[in-house]
């Protein structure tokens, strides 16, 4: 049977291990899908090709996690980053935690900050099906 995924989660993770963000370019609308799906997240087309993204983007929003899920150690910053190529992905932010709290009057200024992706490897847990490879964004 035909496999419809041109880029799987494993492929995406393998790219992240080398600090590469892979996405899919739509041959119909030209827009970028990331993280991978079997269809274009913008127009629904299945006519996609794998492409390496710049890893550059800007922070849309973020939070400092003080109460973490089982298997995660607080405190860490989660952020949403709008990549230069269009799509938005979630990741960690490598930044001074104190500056990302409401105690810092200027914390909201992190929104819009330009960042570039690397990665962090988090250990597997019972449910994760292997190591967790997470985009780690750093200020430019």
């Amino acid at each position, binding site marked *: 049977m035909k496999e419809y995924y041109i880029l799987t*989660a494993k492929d*995406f*993770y393998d790219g992240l291990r080398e600090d590469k963000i892979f996405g899919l370019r739509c041959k119909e609308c030209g827009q970028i899908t990331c*993280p991978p*799906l079997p269809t274009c*997240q913008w127009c629904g087309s299945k006519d996609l090709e794998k492409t390496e993204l710049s890893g550059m983007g800007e922070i*849309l*929003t*973020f*939070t*400092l*996690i*003080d*109460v*973490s*899920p*089982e*298997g*995660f150690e607080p405190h*860490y910053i*989660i*952020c*949403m980053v709008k990549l230069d190529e269009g*799509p*938005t*992905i*979630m*990741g*960690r932010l490598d930044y001074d935690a104190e500056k*990302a*709290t*409401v105690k810092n009057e200027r*914390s*909201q200024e992190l*929104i819009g900050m330009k960042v570039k992706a690397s990665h962090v490897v*988090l250990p597997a847990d019972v*449910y*994760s099906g292997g190591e*967790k*490879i*997470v*985009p780690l964004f750093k200020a430019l």
Partner: protein
Amino acid sequence: MRDVAIIGTGQTRFGRWDKSNTELFCDAALEAMEEANVDQKDIEALYAGAVFPTFEEGQCNIGGHLVESLHLGNIPATRFEGACCSATIAIRDAYMWVASGFYDIVLAGGTERALLMGTSLATKTFAMAGDCKYEGNAGITFPGMFAMAARRYSKIYDIPLDKLREKMAHVSIKNHKHGALNPLAQFYQKMGNLKVEDVINSRMICDPLTLMDCCPFSDGGAAAIIASADIARRYTDEPIYILGAGQGSAGHLGAQEDMTKPASRVFSSRSAFKQAGLGPKDIDIMEIHDCFTSAEIIASEAIGFFDWGKGADAVEEGQTDIGGRPVVNPDGGLMGKGHPIGATGAAQVHTIAEEMKGRAPKGNQVDPVPEIGMTDTLGGGFNTLAHLILGRSRR
């Protein structure tokens, strides 16, 4: 499609229980069946919301055990799982099967024992409602998602974050005020007189959301008996009619255009309004999924009660308190009443039905008795949304 009514509802007290998920569901179901005066042999199917019975007590495939416990024969029983929206999608499906004529009477509801998991595992399992590879693995939590939504809201509408936190605190103040007066609430007789400072200065969970910006983990069950409107009056003098129902879906947060304007909620609520032939202005009373203070504000805008960016002002000004319109969460909402996630949607329906019968607790009851009510239930990061519009009168 034929008209459908709710002929009985039931809800356990929410909070900590030493009863199993099956026991909590059946306590609520038997109360609903007694109110509806239905015989066990009248019920043709059972739909149950239950999100984490496997993690909580090692129970999957709960349906048959519910049917056996209630002595319903060998009728089909199906578990519905849409995270915190599970009971509402169970009731919506019960509604559709009855509306289609396939069944005349269906028992629908939900159950959960989230407190059994403890905070660490509960936080982990709740986060499983997001995309496991691209959200859960990063270590996001649900308060974290709504903390990010609050910062985004502050940015988009240019409301300084400290000002927004004060406005958000009024959601917690209002809902705890109502919850403290609700004998079925987890925080009954507790925290009924919160101040803005109490919310803002409580323990930080996911910056900028504090503990008092968050609903609790809870145990509890709730249920409703869904019947064809043609036979409803054989069972009750006070049928509550389902005038419209909607459901919507979305994927990971990054693929959603704007987390402060959740498209799945707009889609679901508009579907319900369209079917009912009603709009936001027609709603007297509203149960909103206030899992977090920022969540209630975002929902109140997406459903259409307030313009984008104005929901925070509306709650601060008391527009959604009892005496305002629409009244939002007069029973305490998830924040004051509790949030046993598999049961929450059915408990919202229970509250609307009690309000419409004039039987809500003192301090929760809306006067005059509401004619049109609505429930809003959210699962995950806007991944599953469902709405029900209920009325005292048939269309």
